[in-house]
């Protein structure tokens, strides 16, 4: 009954993509922002190892988010 009015094949892809990309990217960005805050604290406290670790996390998250933005633009302009 539901399958006759709802395209279930498309729906499950949307569900997975929304939860993975929507929630996952938000969580990833939160990790980046948290590391950015801790990077500022580590710089102020002068803890070199923490500065390097948090800077690495910020760089990885920034790259991943930038890639997600590019992928989003490509997906939207090629639909």
């Amino acid at each position, binding site marked *: 009954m539901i399958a006759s*009015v709802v395209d279930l094949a498309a729906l499950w892809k949307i569900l997975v993509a929304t939860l993975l990309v929507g929630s996952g990217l*938000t*969580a990833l960005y939160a990790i980046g*922002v*948290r590391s950015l*805050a801790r990077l500022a*604290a580590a710089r102020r406290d002068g803890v070199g190892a923490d500065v390097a670790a948090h800077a690495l996390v910020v760089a990885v998250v920034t790259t991943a988010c930038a890639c997600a933005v590019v992928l*989003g633009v490509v997906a939207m302009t090629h639909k």
Partner: protein
Amino acid sequence: VATAGWHAVKGQAIVEKVLAPALLAPIICGAAAMVGTLIAYRMLQRERTAEQEVTRRGYRYGQVATASLVSLAHGTNDAQKTMGVITLALVAHGTLHQHGASDFSVPLYYGYPLSTTHVVSGGILGVGVGKRLAEVRWGLAGQIAGAWALTLPAAGAVAYATFWAADHLAGGVAGPVIMAIVAAVAATSLFAAIQRRSPVTASDVA
């Protein structure tokens, strides 16, 4: 309906392509926004007060990117609806052949028609739920849902009345032109009346 009668309406297609997505889009996006907001708040709530300005700045940059993407999504998705309506009007009038209209089909990435308006509204609701349940103005959410429910029959009724009036008032191009002027005057009057009663300012979107 006005040109070809009720048999021209494909009920299953309306449910499949309009009603089901309109119902599912806010729920799916709301769920994703709620989970994302919950995770973000859990992660950042224990950060030291001294670093809150850094966190705020980080999210400000993020907001610029997400707002730009929403604008792009709206422009590449919802703007096509107007083109679709114009195409349908041209087909109904006989100016455009029916086969020419098929080129206007713009399927979404996974082949499902979702409205940015419904997705964004669901997302805002989800963020409110994820932050704290009390943050959501459920009365307003109910009004929005009520307006969505009314949109389809109301738009259909207005389109029917406009087409009927244009067809019976005057022949040829004069009828549509008269109705376009009437519609423009009605829309301007409605906007002016709303602005007098409760003005919409920049603070409403800030």
